[in-house]
């Protein structure tokens, strides 16, 4: 389908010792006779200004449109070999051949064969490459929807507006401010970290309401989220019952948290008079307004005990297993409410580990200076009433102790409001569709809980990670939700204090405006933000099997009314999992398709069995396995010259046809190298490697059908640091195949 104007050129580098150990003439011959390249040039130093100039001139003056650069790894010299106006394929002769094939004349033959194959593969690939033009949208919205009007939400809205973006803020209650409205003061954000500070919620709410760029919907919820980044169609249900619609570019979800129900802690006096949680204490302090803090019964509090980790860090499975992080600091803050008002009030904090990281240590010291006493102990019993008492094991004095108090404060945890848990949702919907009445009711109930009510087939809210928090799975990429253009902020993402929450909101807003900008340019979102390609499907060939829609890790694909896949390009992360899933191979990217890889597989010259030169195809994840192979090269480790490596965007994008084609063509084996899967998965497209394993577990029968041993196809989890290991694995596998003998398919291919 390439226009006739296409002109293909191969540029071969003889630098970095390539010319010393490879017969360049042989490579040129391959590029000409088999690669059918119109232009073939060799340069002793292709990546230097002169070499690059040579290529640029050919592009400018000679109409070259497609390049095969046979030199070093695609990970090396990327800047030099960037030619934005043409399609480029890289044949890896350095890290992939000369650096890993054992030195010496006895290896010359296999080394040369390997290099020639890579030139063949490069030429084959480039023929199928189309330079992605991108898909600019004229009418793309850059408006930011913020869901939740608490500190996080307000901060996000203000942040986006300050950067010049229109904002729609939806808050379910009648006022902005969220939990902060119930608070008397907050922990200090800045040096000297000594005293509790006003929350500033009222001021921020006023700013936000007054900001012409921010449209605030109070008493409103999101009734539906449809569309994709750049064109999210949001239905906002108002108290009045009326529905207004907003077109938004990206979404920040800051739906906050609830406090853990104190009545679930009877052993700690939960529910008894004068035993309150931290929220309850904030209310009392707010009521006191700087004066003496009084209990519900009006009695002035003269002694107060704070019980840390109430219903938290619980490994029994009854209460919250995690630590909410802010509670130590919050209790310290609340203790100073009393001390600042009247230093004679006895304030004790009973803790196990006092967790005030960073500058919190200053706040801790400050409270000690004010006379707050800290006791390392485990509280076993609290009784409320006219005179409360707290029984605990003093871990320092190593004895049971009971202290009386007018008021007891339980430091309970944060419970996220992240919306509906998707597995629960899927199960419920399935049951409901089978006519289960209870399930139908539950479904309506869940819809009420849902924050975004997304119309995605994967469910109405963003996926939750653990304990109901919608956190990112990635340490290096804390904002990576699995729903493109929707970013979580604040305590619904992870338990946190107000300072972290406001920081978090600003970060999430950064990602949101970025998503809106990229959607408008037709560019992918993280991790392929530079990528202008996007998947298209030849629907005439589609069998409506739905695998692509089901397997897409990002919920990018819906079904149209005729049940054909409907690609939401702006949701797509360009991993190619859909391409790997498609049994009829109708899905492809301009620069990455069944053909771009398939033709490389076919291009390899597979020797006959009598030559005793097995061929092994390696399909390697380009983020971890391929760099690991490069590392092996950089460390000058050697591995078998019988392997041919093709980098893939993700193991999830591997279409089984490549494997069957390879084995059918007489390859002796296939190694699939992807990222770690399972709970601590490393796959940057979440489910890619997992899907690959799942699909390939089913390929055994196909192989049997071809009369092949299942061992001829192996999958491996490879980490980027596995340079040495990967070389070893290759050599072991090659040895194993030699043991097995050549593929019976040889000669039929």
């Amino acid at each position, binding site marked *: 389908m390439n226009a006739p104007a296409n002109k293909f050129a191969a540029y071969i580098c003889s630098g970095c010792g390539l010319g010393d150990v490879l017969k360049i003439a042989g490579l040129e011959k391959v590029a000409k006779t088999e690669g059918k390249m119109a232009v073939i040039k060799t340069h002793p130093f292709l990546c230097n200004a002169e070499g690059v100039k040579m290529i640029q001139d050919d592009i400018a003056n000679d109409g070259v449109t497609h390049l095969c650069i046979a030199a070093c790894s695609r990970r090396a010299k990327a800047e030099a070999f960037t030619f934005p106006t043409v399609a480029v394929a890289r044949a890896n002769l350095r890290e992939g051949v000369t650096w890993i094939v054992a030195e010496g004349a006895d290896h010359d033959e296999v080394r040369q064969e390997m290099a020639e194959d890579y030139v063949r593969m490069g030429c084959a690939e480039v023929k199928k490459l189309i330079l992605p033009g991108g898909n600019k949208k004229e009418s793309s919205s850059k408006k930011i929807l913020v869901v939740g009007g608490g500190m996080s939400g307000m901060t996000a809205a203000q942040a986006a507006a300050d950067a010049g973006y229109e904002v729609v803020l939806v808050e379910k209650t009648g006022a902005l401010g969220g939990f902060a409205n119930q608070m008397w003061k907050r922990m200090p954000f800045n040096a000297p970290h000594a005293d509790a500070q006003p929350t500033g919620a009222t001021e921020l709410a006023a700013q936000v309401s007054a900001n012409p760029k921010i449209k605030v919907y109070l008493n409103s919820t999101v009734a539906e989220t449809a569309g994709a980044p750049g064109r999210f169609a949001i239905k906002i249900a108002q108290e009045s019952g009326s529905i207004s619609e907003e077109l938004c570019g990206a979404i920040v979800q800051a739906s906050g948290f609830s406090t853990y129900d104190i009545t679930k802690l009877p052993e700690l006096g939960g529910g008894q008079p004068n035993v309150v949680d931290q929220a309850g204490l904030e209310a009392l302090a707010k009521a006191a307004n700087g004066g003496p803090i009084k209990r519900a019964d009006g009695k002035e509090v003269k002694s107060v005990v704070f019980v840390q980790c109430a219903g938290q860090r619980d490994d029994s499975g009854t209460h919250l297993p995690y630590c909410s992080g802010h509670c130590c600091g919050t209790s310290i803050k609340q203790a100073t409410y009393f001390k600042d008002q009247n230093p004679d009030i006895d304030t004790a904090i009973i803790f196990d580990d006092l967790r005030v990281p960073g500058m919190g240590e200053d706040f801790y010291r400050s409270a000690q200076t004010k006379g707050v*006493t800290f006791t390392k102990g485990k509280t076993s019993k609290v009784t409320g009433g006219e005179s409360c008492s707290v029984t605990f094991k003093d871990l320092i*004095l190593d004895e049971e102790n009971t202290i009386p108090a007018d008021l007891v404060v339980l430091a309970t945890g944060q419970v996220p409001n992240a919306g509906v848990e998707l597995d629960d949702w899927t199960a419920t919907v399935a049951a409901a569709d089978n006519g289960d009445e209870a399930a139908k009711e539950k479904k309506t109930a869940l819809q009420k809980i849902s924050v975004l009510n997304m119309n995605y087939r994967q469910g109405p809210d963003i996926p939750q990670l653990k304990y109901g928090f919608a956190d990112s799975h990635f340490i290096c990429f804390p904002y990576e939700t699995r729903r493109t253009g929707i970013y979580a902020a604040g305590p619904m993402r992870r338990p946190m204090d107000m300072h972290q929450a406001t920081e978090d909101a600003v970060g999430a807003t950064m990602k949101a405006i970025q998503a809106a900008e990229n959607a408008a340019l037709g560019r992918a979102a993280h991790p392929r933000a530079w990528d202008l390609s996007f998947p298209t499907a030849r629907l005439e060939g589609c069998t409506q099997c739905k695998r692509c829609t089901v397997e897409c890790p990002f919920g990018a694909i819906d079904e149209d009314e005729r049940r054909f896949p409907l690609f939401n390009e702006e949701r797509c992360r360009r991993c190619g999992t859909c391409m790997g899933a498609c049994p009829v191979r109708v899905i492809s990217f301009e620069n990455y398709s069944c053909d771009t890889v398939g033709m490389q597989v076919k291009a390899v010259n597979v020797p006959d069995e009598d030559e005793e030169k097995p061929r092994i195809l390696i399909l390697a994840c380009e983020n971890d396995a391929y760099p690991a192979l490069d590392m092996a090269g950089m460390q000058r480790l050697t591995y078998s010259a019988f392997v041919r490596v093709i980098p893939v965007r993700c193991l999830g994008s591997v279409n089984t046809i490549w494997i069957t084609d390879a084995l059918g063509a007489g390859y002796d084996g296939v190694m699939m190298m992807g990222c770690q899967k399972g709970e601590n998965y490393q796959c940057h497209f979440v489910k890619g490697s997992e899907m690959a394993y799942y699909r390939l577990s089913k390929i055994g029968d196909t192989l049997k059908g071809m009369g092949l041993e299942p061992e001829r196809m192996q999958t491996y989890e490879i980490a980027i640091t596995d340079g040495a290991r990967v070389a070893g694995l290759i050599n072991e596998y090659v040895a194993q195949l030699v043991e097995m003998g050549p593929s019976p398919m040889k000669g039929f291919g």
Partner: protein
Amino acid sequence: MTTANETAVAKYRNNFLKEVEATVEEGHWVKMCMQCGVCAGSCPFGPHWEHSPQKIFMMIRAGKREEVLKSDSMWMCTSCYNCMVRCPRELPITHIMHGLANYAYRLGLSPKGQPNQVIAKLFWESALKYGRVNELKFSLAMYFRDGFVQGVKNALAMQGVGLGLVKAGRLNPMEIISGHTCKDTSGIHKMIAKAREIEDRRRGLA
């Protein structure tokens, strides 16, 4: 009449921490301890006492007044200052230990006949009497603290050393009769009496 102890108990009711802050040398530092225990592990006499400094600080916060003031722990301080230089919260632990000991002693709660208490007392008296310490009288007093017979035993036990020191010119038998002294001993006595009066007034022990 009520004892100093009873007065203190009445004044601070059950808040021992407040009492310590008001009456003990550097006592206001006690609340800053974070229970890391570095002091406990740093003390050369650590193995020999009941409560470590950090534990005593915890006991003070827990209001264990009797236990603390009657304990012999702070009397075990050799003034090596290890705890003080290592404390991550910069508590002047050595001074607090001395202060607690002194306070307990002034209230008459400290363990009777605790040997270190005895020498501390003897040293001070010796220092005060002539304005300078008279080592011979000081050591003899030390030997004879448990009565004459034991004293002779102690003295004999150290006789070799004593004679050695005399021979080396580092112990002067004549000091029994005459010894080093300041000219203005009477002034010094008045000065110290005054100082004590001021301190007692400040600590409410008058």
